[in-house]
């Protein structure tokens, strides 16, 4: 059974079909939420809220082929909404156990992942979400803009400036002029 069939069946109240859909995408959405929120508990809340909303409103999804884009949008907006509601909450920093790190040639990266994580964290959450949606979830910029509810031009501009800020943070552009952008809400 392909995803379209699963979405159609879930939209008609088949919870087993919905469970198959959830198990297929929850890992990636949970990871995206952790990247955006930098808080595993908040990420859990955001993903749960997103899936409850998705299940409730699935009968209203017009085009089953847009399910992925739709659930991405719901999840990202759920993340940003939670962040705004709990802006003053102390962030719990997740330390990923080394055993969980996929085996790979980490040393081959031009930058250290901790540096990237720090640079990412320093971005404003809205900007960080855009980077995550585009570079991690792989949505094209127009769809990422739609997911975040911002115009395409704004998305392009923010993405450009976010990357410039991250490069600067990572000292990949030592000669670059400073980039003015909103700083992240650490807590």
């Amino acid at each position, binding site marked *: 059974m392909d995803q379209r069939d699963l979405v159609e069946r879930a939209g008609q109240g088949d919870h087993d079909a919905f469970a198959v859909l959830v198990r297929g995408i929850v890992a990636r959405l949970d990871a995206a939420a952790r990247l955006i929120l930098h808080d595993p508990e908040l990420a859990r809340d955001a*993903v*749960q809220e997103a899936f409850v909303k998705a*299940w409730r409103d699935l009968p209203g999804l017009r*085009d089953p082929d847009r399910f992925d884009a739709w659930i991405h*949008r719901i999840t990202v907006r759920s993340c940003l909404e939670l962040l705004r509601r709990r802006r003053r909450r102390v962030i719990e920093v997740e330390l990923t156990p080394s055993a969980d*790190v996929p085996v*790979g040639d980490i040393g081959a990266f031009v930058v250290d992942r901790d540096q990237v994580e720090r640079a990412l964290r320093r971005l404003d959450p809205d900007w960080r979400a855009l980077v995550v949606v585009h*570079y991690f979830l792989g949505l094209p910029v127009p769809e990422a803009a739609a997911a975040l509810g911002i115009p395409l031009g704004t998305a392009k501009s923010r993405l450009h400036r976010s990357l410039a800020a991250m490069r600067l943070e990572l000292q990949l552009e030592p000669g670059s002029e400073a980039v003015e952008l909103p700083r992240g809400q650490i807590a």
Partner: protein
Amino acid sequence: MSAFDRSERFLVELPEILTDIASPRVPDYVDDLLAQTAATPQRPRWTFIERWLPMGAIARRPLFFPTVPWRTIVTVALLIALLAVALIVVGSQSKVPPPFGPARNGALAFGDGDVYLRDSVTGESRLVVGGATHDFAATFTRDGKRLLFLRLTDGSSGSSDERITLMAANPDGSNAVAVSEPLVAPDWWDITPDDSAVVVATGDPSFGQVLKVANIRTPGPMRLIDVGDPAMTFSFPNLLGPTGTEIVFRGNTRTSAGRRSGLFAVHVDGSGLRPLTPTDGLDNDYLFPQPSPDGQFVTYTTWDGGAELNRIHALALQTGADRIVSDPTRNQGFATFSPDSQLIVFNTYSSERNQITVAPVNGRGPQLPMGPSYRVVQDQYITGSFSPDGKSVLVNDPASKETRLVDVTMGGDGQLLDWSAGNISGWQRLAP
């Protein structure tokens, strides 16, 4: 490695680095999550506004065929040419119904695939737009000189690649021309009072629609309405009577609390954006806004999550007073006004039955069922629309293909018509 090389490589590696940082894994709360969703009721399909687009409400626009007294005009023209011209102008103007409000009943437009006109409720039907094209949602410009309808021009109906073009033709279906670009989900549109243009909400409703203007008289590139709020998405644009200088719409935009919905008005050129309600609604609030022809009220439908019911509200535009006008114990929504702005016709529904209902907008009178209740059939919804004179309601059930004409003062089963289309989209308005 140069700084440039490192920078470029960083961009290439960023997706992999992010994957490494996040290390995606199935979280341990999946079972809890699924238990939570299993305990959550799904919203019934019929409560989604996107799946309930009563074309009768869309196409209740005015129509007029002027009957010019040619013989008299020619005679008079032989005597006083200038006076004859003046009489033509004055005579034509006097035959045009006002763009908003009651009018005399004229022809009916219907069809899904081909477009037909029926001269009156009891008259003959004739095909006006046929052929291999898929044409639907036909109505007329307010002056009756052009027939407007939608044409599926790309993709298959209901698919993500579906594109629909707004067409204009002569009333007999000839000289059909595209007046819009191929559009994604042009779910709602309305005609300006001077019949020069159509305002369309278009774009994937799941991701937010924009407002565009199509010129009917001289088709060309469509104009995007820029209201000065780049975060705003639009749905259900309707020209606000009695002047039609403003568009009333449901907007969704950024607020300090996140994205929220509300009702707004804006001039057709995009200037003068003003909120009509607080911008505090969630996805299921402030749906289906419909202004009264006299411009005094806007009705809208809001989902009451606590009661699991849709509610109809009436917002007084002068005072801002907002009250619920639907039965508090029943699921009711999607109201449109009578031509005299005194009554609303709406749908009362459950998971099993649909019922068209009429009630006074001021709440001082009973709710009257119009026609029998109809069995719910997936994605097919009954519609109820007032006749231009406001004396009757035309009830259509696309599933049973039953059409009834019901007296608004009597209610009940009304008159079962000996013809049925199930998808009547417009009723011609004539000068009183």
